[in-house]
């Protein structure tokens, strides 16, 4: 009557006959060995709901239809996003996960997509290698690139790693979607697009000028901002707001390379020691001076409370000391090439005089739970007010060493992408911040006075496999599946053509690190069947696929 199929696996789970076993070994191990010649298990592609991102359930559906065509029963399973995170990243209890790895500026360095996504040590609760992928050769390569301080040599290793990662297909990169965003060119000028951030970049925030109006730029967003806690920040949209208010030691420039910011200059004393000269005359928004002490405090505090986004890198830090009046020395436990781009370029500096009392003197158990009602930072924008769920306003902090060119930014929540587009079209808003739905972008592009475009991105949509479950534990099977998915169709129908076919985990847009030798597998079902047949898979009369027997 309704579409409700319960597979063997599902049935096992529901009946719970194996609870004991799964508690001992984890759900991955439970289903490890299929009977030879048995029907390939039906599976589900978990993904977020359309409310969160309309693209995801649709792609999951297209993929599952494609898998069905080759004799494998797969269904799309869109559930709430944080359930996704819980099931996949925390519990590793899933078959396949379709997800977007967004191309934030912190991810321009190849370390995140190579080491964190592929290294076997990152298969842990909360880690990025939720695939359970493990390959000694890849492990040693991605470790090597992390330690290699010479850029040219590191590039070589990165190139090599990309080839192997693509061959292994623990991740099937479906598409590099462009950063689709729009702004009113008749109201603001000097936007600075940036790789992976489009016009929503920090450089736009501080460089754009208002042509018409009171100097405030009205920015539209489709969903409300959740929190403004610089220690707890995890998602890209939070970072986008926080980095206006809080400063970092370095900022990733529009070209993707880090430039000194709150740290005026730096010196590598030896591969394990870095000396930073903190900029003089900086002030917090409440007038207190910004000192090297604050920098040291920030590191100690973030290490102590395990700032979730930076925790794994912070663990590589041995000590942070104040040297002289404006110097800070960071000692590492091991060499770490992406230190500046991934940590110093992202960690928000906290005012010691405020955060030293948190959580003790505030009514919270944990600084990660601190609502931070009135953030005080040292960034180019000063916090004005935040009507939760509706609006946030920041104004230029004129004392800043690089003050913004506009008077401030007002961020307003519109209920949907459509409302955002309408607001820009009507001129009620000047620009949007994050991704705007591609199909809407094409409509907006036709409006006079609006610039609506896709900008290059190194983030991507990817189908990730639970590499501990059969048949997904078979690299040949994964490789065959890479030939099955119609990426062009997905891009044409779902992403309105504003994306490029996915291949390597390091996108072509990331010019320096991308290895052009890595090409996407062609959409070729015959080839896929061929690979599968060679690996021993068979098909029955109904066309259903069976394990090698």
């Amino acid at each position, binding site marked *: 009557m309704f579409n409700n199929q319960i597979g063997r696996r599902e049935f096992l789970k529901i009946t719970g006959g194996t609870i004991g076993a799964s508690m001992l070994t984890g759900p991955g191990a439970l289903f490890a060995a299929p009977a030879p010649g048995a029907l390939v298990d039906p599976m589900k592609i978990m993904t977020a709901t359309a409310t969160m991102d309309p693209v995801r359930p649709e792609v999951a559906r297209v993929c599952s239809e494609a898998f069905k065509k080759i004799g494998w029963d797969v269904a799309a399973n869109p559930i*709430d996003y944080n359930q996704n995170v819980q099931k996949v990243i925390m519990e590793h209890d899933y078959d396949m996960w379709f997800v977007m790895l967004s191309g934030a500026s912190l991810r321009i360095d190849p370390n995140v997509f190579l080491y964190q996504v592929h290294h076997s040590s990152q298969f842990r609760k909360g880690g990025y290698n939720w695939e359970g992928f493990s390959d000694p050769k890849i492990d040693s390569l991605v470790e090597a690139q992390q330690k290699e301080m010479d850029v040219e040599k590191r590039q070589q290793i990165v190139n090599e790693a990309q080839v192997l990662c693509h061959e292994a297909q623990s991740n099937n990169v479906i598409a590099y979607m462009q950063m689709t965003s729009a702004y009113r060119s008749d109201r603001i000028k000097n936007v600075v697009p940036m790789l992976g951030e489009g016009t929503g970049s920090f450089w736009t925030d501080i460089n754009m000028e208002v042509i018409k109006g009171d100097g405030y730029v009205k920015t539209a967003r489709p969903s409300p901002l959740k929190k403004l806690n610089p220690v707890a920040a995890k998602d890209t949209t939070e970072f986008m707001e926080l980095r206006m208010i809080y400063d970092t030691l370095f900022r990733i420039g529009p070209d993707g390379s880090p430039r000194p910011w709150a740290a005026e200059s730096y010196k590598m004393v030896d591969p394990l020691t870095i000396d930073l000269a903190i900029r003089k005359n900086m002030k917090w928004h409440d007038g207190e001076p910004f000192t090297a002490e604050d920098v040291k405090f920030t590191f100690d505090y973030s290490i102590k409370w395990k700032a979730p986004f930076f925790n794994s890198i912070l663990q590589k830090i041995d000590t942070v000391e104040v040297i002289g009046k404006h110097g800070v020395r960071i000692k590492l436990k091991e060499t770490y090439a992406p230190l500046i781009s991934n940590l110093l370029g992202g960690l928000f500096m906290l005012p010691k005089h405020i955060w030293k009392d948190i959580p003790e003197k505030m009514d919270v158990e944990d600084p990660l739970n601190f609502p931070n009602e009135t953030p005080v930072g040292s960034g180019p924008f000063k916090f004005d007010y935040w009507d939760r769920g*509706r609006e946030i306003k920041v104004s230029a902090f004129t004392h800043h060493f690089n003050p913004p060119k506009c008077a401030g930014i007002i961020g307003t929540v519109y209920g949907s992408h459509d409302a955002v587009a309408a607001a820009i079209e009507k001129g009620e808003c000047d620009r949007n911040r994050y991704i705007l739905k591609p199909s809407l972008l094409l409509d907006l592009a036709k409006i006079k006075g609006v610039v609506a475009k896709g900008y290059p991105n190194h983030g991507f949509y990817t189908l990730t496999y639970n590499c501990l479950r059969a048949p997904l534990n078979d690299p040949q099977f994964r490789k065959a599946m890479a030939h099955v998915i119609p990426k062009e169709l997905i891009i044409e129908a779902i992403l309105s053509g504003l994306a490029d076919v996915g291949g390597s985990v390091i996108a072509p847009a990331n010019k320096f690190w991308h290895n052009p030798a890595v090409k996407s597998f062609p959409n070729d079902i015959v080839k896929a069947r061929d690979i599968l047949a060679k690996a021993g898979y068979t098909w029955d009369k109904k066309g259903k696929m069976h394990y090698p027997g």
Partner: protein
Amino acid sequence: MQEFIIRRIIYTIFTIFAVATILFCIFRIMPGDPTAQVISPALDEAAQARLKEAFGLDKPVYIQYALYLKGLVTLEWGRSFTTSKPVFEILKYRFWNTVFLMGAAMGFTLLLGTALGMVMAWKRGGPLDVSATVSALVLQSAPPFVTGILFLMILSYKLDIFPTGGMSTPGERLPPGIAMLFNKDFLLHLILPAITTAFYYLATPMLIMRDSMLEVTGSDYIELAQAKGLSPGTVMIKHAARNALLPVFTVSSVLIGFALGGQVIVETVFSWPGMGLLMVEAASAHDYPVAQATFLLLAVLIIVLNLLADISYCYLDPRISVPGGKK
């Protein structure tokens, strides 16, 4: 009478308690880790353990239940997973937004409904009667998101008369408290969601008014008044309408109760930052403390409105004088 009211109040308290209990149970039997209802799974394990202790989740169920009830009464509703703000703080602000919208919508429905009902009864069988009945029934069959989107399409996007959503124009901060109600910008934003809600519920007060008018106009004393030579208009308004209003009045608080539950849709369509929208956001973000508290607050509102309906019913309807006479 007094005894009746006291009994109703006791029942009401019992009902609220029961709803709270059901809610507690639902959140316990849900699949997955039940502690996830107060502890964000995003936190690391040490922090989770700390919180588990703080919330008493390492204790047996009945103690948890007691703690839960205590928390409800003392307004300690926990902290939102997504925003880290105390739930009470969030709801305080959302609550009034919903109440304002609801008040405007229901006021409009009741006024328009009774007025139309009156005229319909007066000109019964006429074209107005028939067309109003049919259109009210059709409006009742049209889910509020259909009418809401239609309004948006025509009045906001096409004709650009009304704003597309929210409570105020971006950048215009509303004055706090009561002063907000007299803000032009706020009122302009209020109109579409209020009318959408109002239309959906129009049929009930209108048809009840019509039917009860017919009932009243058939009774002896109206005929007497007519015999005395009073003009039909006077008879309609002075005598008939006053008596016919009674059932409309009693039904209105039940109606508001229903409307409160349906508010989620209107608030979503017009991105009105009320409790309904909060409910949807919390449910899809699995922000359990917020979802739980919002649900409960809505339930309490509805239950109290039902109580008011009962009491007003027994005050206003002289036929019911026996305690618990509704039976």
